[in-house]
């Protein structure tokens, strides 16, 4: 198991290094940072001074070395907008996003597995048909539109829930509910398909011949095998939430990474944008490692 973790981490590390290189050169491709940071009417002297201070007149490789060194210390420089280290600003927002993503994905996972499994148990039955239609609608629903409608109905119309912000637990209800819909619809369908094939597998026949109860057959024998493809989709969906649910966070004024990134791009807060990219990338790499580990835990054939 330990060798497995080491191998997977190493593979992730390679892609992480790739990303570091890519981000550096892409950010240089977008133009001279001097033009980005200084006002349009800055004098040539100011520009030269700026380049000197930030080492932009050094050879590219030297700059790259410095950039990697800074990265290792998680030093992205200061946020221009907030006059604090960019990494602090990003981590603060990331904690919000992380909470939102974790709660949403936990709810989605449990609900989708239960609904999908029950639908698969009686294929073509009433429950299967209803959940089939609902999950299809959910999977294809435009979430920005639902978010706005939800605000209009529940916050403005009925006045049950706040429109935006994070003060009380009630503030979380709408963002989570809206973020829930799409991954739920998608994962229900994956669980159903995967469970149908697991339930028709030979080992389930053996379980029936052993005289096991249906509950045990579904949730012990079939589910664990059916989870393998499901985990991949869960990981993928969770990654897109970690990335910052940009639209939803913006609509609900939720102070997560998605909103931070949009704000920083609009205000040209370059250090914060870079820091957000690196932090979310790191989070997604960790997340993928977690998925790999879950795979290995569920399926002994992968461990060996």
């Amino acid at each position, binding site marked *: 198991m330990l060798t497995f973790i080491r191998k997977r981490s190493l593979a992730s590390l390679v892609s992480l290094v790739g990303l570091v290189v890519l981000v550096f050169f892409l950010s240089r491709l977008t133009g001279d940072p001097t033009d980005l940071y200084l006002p349009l009417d800055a004098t040539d002297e100011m520009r030269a001074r700026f380049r000197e201070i930030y080492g932009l007149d050094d050879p590219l490789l030297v700059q790259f070395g410095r950039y990697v060194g800074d990265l290792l210390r998680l030093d992205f420089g200061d946020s221009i907008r907030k006059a604090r280290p960019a990494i602090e600003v990003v981590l603060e927002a990331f904690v919000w996003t992380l909470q939102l993503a974790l709660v949403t994905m936990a709810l989605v996972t449990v609900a989708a597995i239960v609904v999908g499994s029950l639908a698969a148990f009686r294929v073509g039955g009433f429950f299967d048909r209803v959940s089939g239609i609902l999950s299809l609608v959910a999977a294809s629903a435009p979430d920005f539109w639902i978010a706005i409608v939800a605000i209009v109905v529940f916050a403005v119309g009925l006045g049950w829930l706040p429109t935006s912000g994070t003060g009380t637990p009630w503030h979380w209800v709408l963002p989570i509910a809206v973020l829930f819909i799409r991954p739920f619809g998608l994962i229900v369908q994956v669980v159903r398909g995967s469970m149908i094939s697991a339930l028709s597998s*030979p*080992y389930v026949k*053996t379980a*029936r011949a*052993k*005289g096991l109860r249906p509950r045990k057959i579904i949730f012990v024998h079939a589910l*664990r*095998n059916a989870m393998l493809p499901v985990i991949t989709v869960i990981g993928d969906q969770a990654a897109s939430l970690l990335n910052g649910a940009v639209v939803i966070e913006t609509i609900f004024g939720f102070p997560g990474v998605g909103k931070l990134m949009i704000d920083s791009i609009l205000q040209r807060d370059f250090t914060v944008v870079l820091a957000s990219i690196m932090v979310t990338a790191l989070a997604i790499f960790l997340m993928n490692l977690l998925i790999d580990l879950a795979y290995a835990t569920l*399926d002994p054939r992968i461990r060996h």
Partner: protein
Amino acid sequence: MPDHLLEVRDLSVEFHTAGGVVKAVRGVSWHVDRGETLAILGESGSGKSVSTAAILDLIDMPPGRITSGEILFDGRDLLRLGAAARRDINGRRIAMIFQDPLSHLNPVYPVGWQIVETMTAHGLPGARARAEALRLVTRVGLPDPAGALRKYPHEFSGGQRQRLMIAMALAMKPDVLIADEPTTALDVTVQAEVLLLLKELQQETGMGVVIITHDLGVVAEIADRVVVMNAGEIVESGPAREVYHDPRHPYTRKLIGAAPGKGEMHPPLARAEPVLSVRNVRKAYGTFTALDGVSLDLMPGETLAVVGESGSGKSTLARVLLRLDEPDSGEALWKGRDLFRLSPAELFALRRDLQMVFQDPTQSLNPRMTVAQLISEAWAIHPRILPRDRWRARVAELLAQVGLRPEHANRYPHQFSGGQRQRIAIARALALEPELIICDEAVSALDVSVQAQVIDLLDRLRREMGIAFIFIAHDLPVVRDFADHVMVMQRGRVVEHGTVRQVFDSPREPYTRALLAAGLDPDPDVQAARRAALRTERRAAGA
């Protein structure tokens, strides 16, 4: 009339499919008594597994429907019991083992857990179940029983997995054990061991055994009585010896007649210049040596049978000769040119001389191509052989040659039976007028009667067209009526190589003798005599 241990009366089952109602079994009746072994013999599609699936409530309804009959066990009709009562009987009183133990064991749980589960599901406390699991695994003869319990199904060999299935089935000391093709996927020597184990366990526990099989040899070895099924009906039943020696129904006669290994053996071929001469081929996959210095000569129009158990390297040999895999060393001279040293372009030109027919025609034929497309694809790849306007006529000719009709050309593979599909695969191989066809287990997946037909076809093609065959098989009787020379392989080496008469009538090597002895004869008397001889031998060894 005395009560039987388990009795099926007038059972009819149908399946409602998109293509209409399929009557899987009609009016089937049979019984099994304590300590007795009943064999249900039939080919694929005969409905031989349906009645036992009904006994264990394994038929999904819908699409299945039981339209008549009763299943009597313990004085009760199982078909009238509720789901909970059926579950209580499943695994505890009536247990089942299956054909392919790898897919019938749950891949993600340790085997010990799965054996224990059978017992805890029927109310045994965990500690006792674990102790019992250890005893069972020891009894079925697995090495390192305590360690084996912690391992997963993929870590065992096929024979060991079937032993584990047996341990799991016998955990609750059932009254009836149903075995559905329990040894079909196993090597002959392993098959013999597993059947012996079943027999011993039956003597220890006195359980009734129902064994479902397509193999007359298995019937001869293990069954007291046999029911023969064809197209959903029982055509004949009775004591195994009587049915074999005095079959009443034409279908039974046909089945017994088709059993391989009873015909005339080929006389030795006249010596000739070999068309293929293989010297000292080696191939290793990592640390596993698949081919360890294999040499052979093949004369024009000769059939060389390569026989061996799984892992013997016989399929690797085929793949290496066709350069589907690269050998590590050695040479293979085809009409004086070394196949292993040809450039890709030279190899391409030579491909038309060497063709291959695979084991599973369902997988080796592209399901989205018609028969005509499948066969003429070869001419599209080798364009100089046949002008396009002659393709249709040639496809019709080839189909006729392999015993199919010209109008089959526009159908798709799924519209044919397994035997017909293998004929299509052979027609495809013939399209390029090859001089050598390598058949890798080409008849292993087919029913006996179909097997005989396909072998007849290959033999005819050899006589009429002078094609040489390398015929790879795990089963000795199949090659007996067909081969000129036989090569026996074990662990990547050739252990014996001789004319078919020499290998079958006076095998020199102990391994060949063991293989021949492990192969089951369809005649119950022959098997009984062999068992008696084995007992005497053992007693002598023990004394």
